[in-house]
Structure formats: C-alpha cells, structure tokens
C-alpha cells in the first residue's frame, strides 16, 4: 500500500514537473528569469523602475525646478510681506 502511495507521489511529481517545463517563461522567483528581468505576476518582465530610467532621467529633471519656475518663486516670496502688511493694516 505504501509502495503504491510512493509510486503515485512519484508519478505526480514527474507529471507536475512536465507541466512546469511547459510553463514557458512563467516564474516563481526573480532568479527564475533571465538576467535583467524580474518576476512579476508570475511572468518575467522588465523591472518597474527600468522604464523611467530609459527616459533619460525625466523624473530627475522634473524634481529640479526649471529656471522659469524659480523666477516665479521670487514674486511669490515678495507677496508674503505684502500680505503680512495687509494683516497689520487690518488690525
């Protein structure tokens, strides 16, 4: 009886291994994927942060304000004392 159970288990393992071999590029761990790819949703794919990097660092440029934006910030700063003065006048 135990021998039959062992044979059944072995058959299941072999069968499942065959099915796994047909799984294509399906993955369970990142190391199942070719180098440069990661496992996401059971499939090998580009890393999530790879696409922005290919844009030439667009995110980095957005993080630093352009010169025009910086110039706009100066009048805004000057507006603050004006507002404070208005507040004193109001009191």
């Amino acid at each position, binding site marked *: 009886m135990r021998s039959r159970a062992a044979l059944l288990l072995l058959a299941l393992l072999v069968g499942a*291994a065959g099915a796994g071999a047909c799984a294509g590029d399906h993955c369970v*761990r*990142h*190391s199942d994927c070719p180098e440069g790819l990661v*496992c996401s*949703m*059971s499939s090998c794919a580009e890393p999530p942060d790879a696409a922005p990097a290919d844009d030439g660092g667009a995110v980095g440029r957005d993080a630093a304000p352009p010169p025009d934006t910086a110039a706009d910030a100066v009048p805004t700063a000057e507006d603050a004392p004006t507002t404070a003065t208005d507040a004193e006048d109001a009191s």
Partner: protein
Amino acid sequence: MAKILLAILLLGPTLARAEAPLVAVEARVTEGLTVGGGQGRSVWRLAPYTVGAFAEVATVEEPWTTFYAGGYFEGGDRAAAGAAVGLRVRPGRGRLRFGAGATGTVVPYSILGATAAGGLCFDDLGPAACVELEGVVYLFGSDLPDDGTAAQLQVGLEVGFDAL
C-alpha cells in the same frame, strides 16, 4: 524474495535502528517542484536542484532528536549558495524521521523560508541512506516577488556517515 522486500518496506518505520550516532555528517541532494503566484493564479515549475553537506548532532535521547546544520549549492539554471538548520525527531529511534527548520539561499540573492519534512532512513548496510519529502514555504528575501508567494515540494536523498 519480493514478499520479504515488501515486508521490510512496510515494517521499516517500526524497526528500531541498531544504534543512532551522536554526530553524523551527510551529503544531500534535492530536487522537486516550486509553486508560486498571486492574485488567483498559480504557477508550477521545476525547482532548482541542491547539493549540500550537513552535520547532525544528537541533542535529546527520548525521543531521539538531532540538530542539523549545513550548506548547499543551488544549481540548474542558476548558481547560488545557502544554508539550512533545524531539528529532526526519530520516534523510537526507528527509520521514520520528521524534521522542521529554516532554509535560506543567501548568495547572490536571498530567499528564506521554513521547512517541514518526513522520511525514512536505512542504515543496515553501513552508511545511512535516507529519502525525505520536504516542503518549504518561502517567507521573505530579495528573490521573492513582492506580488506573490512561493513554496517548494522536494525529494531529498541523503547518505550519512557516523562521525561519533
């Protein structure tokens, strides 16, 4: 003759071992299936094989309990190294063996998990030969996808030698 072999296999777990070693070293190979997935989808695939060397030290006499530790190489479509530790219990010092512990690949990536195993050991002809079915649930590590889980079912074959 076939009936005798069948009887040995069936009664194996209940037959007491001649003498359990206090310290043993063993070579071990494993192969099996790994399953993972998430969000309603699961994937089975062939697990990487492992080849390892372990040491086993007796810690409790009744029930016969041993502590084991060792390292392994993970191969196949990758190359990595890891380690495993745990406890094994052999009720009545028989052939039947149960184990639980932790395993983890640490180089060049990491994946750590908990293990549970059961198997049989035969040491009547000198070196102990063991066959074991082991389940692994991976809990964390850089090799584990953020959006999924991973587990492994594998068969381990061991050859052990008494050191003390």
